[in-house]
């Protein structure tokens, strides 16, 4: 088993005077999809943002590909191969879909083959290619956000609740794209409330509570053990 692509050691993050992360330990295995689970407010989004650098960790270490990334500026982390799909999607409403996608490629123009693949995965983007991104529906914006992160090949994707509020048909489109991403060798750290998506996609799972990772293991193990689910997350997720 190769080295994990990302290791978080005892990460503490404060937002204003609130202690959000209180010693997060996490390993994201290379080439796999890791689910970050937990109830609302436990610190999942903050963890992703700390990894990306938008929040600065008060203490602790972030190791990416063996490199200490804890003090690196945000844009350097992105250039090192980390892609980020935030909870609020972060698409540029005044820009067209095409312009959003162009911005997704820092090291050159949009590779035509990659573009074709993405448009195949998310046809709606092709239809609205020259329209302002602000005119897209919620689900289409979500797709754009992910597609933009995938516009360039990256090694690690940090994705925050991509399926929130989406119709089931779009959810399956999303899941399929993520599967193909993994097939290309990328590693994914995914925050997901939708447990069936989590079960279908995840290889490993980490459950957070109170700013800490309280369980870390194979998805298969968590998926089949409803007592464990209830203990960790307060309720059985099967109903979702």
């Amino acid at each position, binding site marked *: 088993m190769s080295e994990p692509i990302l290791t978080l050691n005892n990460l503490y993050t404060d937002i204003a005077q609130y202690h959000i992360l209180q010693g997060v330990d996490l390993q994201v295995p290379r080439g796999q999809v890791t689910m970050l689970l937990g109830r609302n407010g436990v610190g999942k989004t903050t963890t992703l943002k700390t990894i990306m650098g938008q929040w600065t960790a008060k203490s602790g270490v972030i190791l990416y590909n063996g490199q200490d990334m804890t003090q690196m500026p945000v844009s350097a982390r992105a250039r090192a191969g980390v892609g980020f799909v935030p909870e609020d999607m972060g698409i540029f409403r005044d820009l067209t879909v095409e*312009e959003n996608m162009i911005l*997704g490629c*820092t090291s050159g123009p949009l590779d035509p083959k990659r573009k074709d693949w993405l448009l195949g995965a998310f*046809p709606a983007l092709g239809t609205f290619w020259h329209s302002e991104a602000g005119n897209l529906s919620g689900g*289409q914006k979500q797709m754009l956000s992910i597609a933009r992160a995938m516009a360039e090949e990256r090694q690690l994707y940090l994705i925050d609740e991509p399926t929130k509020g989406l119709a089931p048909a779009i959810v399956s489109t999303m899941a*399929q794209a993520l599967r193909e991403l993994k097939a290309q060798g990328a590693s994914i750290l995914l925050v997901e409330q939708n447990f069936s998506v989590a079960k279908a996609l995840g290889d490993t799972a980490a459950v957070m509570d109170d700013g800490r990772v309280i369980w870390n293991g194979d998805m298969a193990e968590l998926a089949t053990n409803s007592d464990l689910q209830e203990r960790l997350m307060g309720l059985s997720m099967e109903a979702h």
Partner: protein
Amino acid sequence: MTAAPDHKPTFAALSLSERLDKALPVLLVPLLVVLGFLAIGTPSSWMTLTVSGLAMGMMIFIMASGLTLVFGLMDVINFGHGAFVSVGAFVGVSVLIALGDWTGTASLLLNMSAVFLAVVAAMMVTGIMGWGFERIIVKPVYGAHLKQILVTVGGLIVVEQLIHVVWGPDEIYITRPETLKGAITFAGAAMEKYRLLAVAIGLVLFIAMRMVLRRTKIGLIVRAGVENGPMVEALGYRLRMVFIGVFVAGSALAGLGGVMWGLYQEVITAGMGEKMMVLVFIVAIIGGLGSVEGAFIGALLVGLMQNYVAFLEPKLALVSNIALMTAILMWRPQGMLPVVKAK
């Protein structure tokens, strides 16, 4: 791979009132021109004033464009912007005086070359000055609006005084190059050649800025940065470099505006930039902070308003622009074409 379900995308066609609402800011300019005609009466006076108004508007736009972009992108308010206008004017005028032979002859080529060199010199000096200003004065106070206002006002004072140190305490008079003197008459209206040139330069600059913002990648980054800076960084772009670039460009543009304004007035003083700042701020506010198009429309409105009212009732000229600003803010409190920032 399974084909994604075909979501038939529907675009609700914008109703007439919605489309009108979007186009209204642009329509205000011809509207004001028409109102001006009705108020002034004589076509020849109206034409002269309209050209003056557009020329003045263009110059204010050049000065305001840098300010509004810097604010939209960096959330930095530079009350010292006027200093760049003044410095640009002094540098440009100094070059013109040094090239007195070229400006004195009736050769369009030599005249334009002199003006060109003056402009280049002014923009280079103010650009470099902008870089220094950003590093030393602005960078330490990112995010703290109160301190920004104070510190940039301080910078304004110091730079103005330095102009006195270098160029002396008096104003400097400058005559326009030979071929740019005088006016063309058209349908009974006299239109100064220089003002026509100013309108042309302003238009070219506006189109160039629009093209850079819309067609180049760096323009894309700036527009995206105005909307959501953190996301642009998360995509891998060094936003700080972009900031510095925009600040330098904005300062250089202010310098250009200064040279042009100096030639318009035919006299320059250390405090001229400071005096223009009121109109520049009004333009930035009514245009919507962060919007180049908004600043363009706003500047034309302000320029026209100033010239029309100065003709009709000279004492009310500045007040009329305040009234314009109040009216627009009551209609659209964020300005005509505000940039909607992501949280």
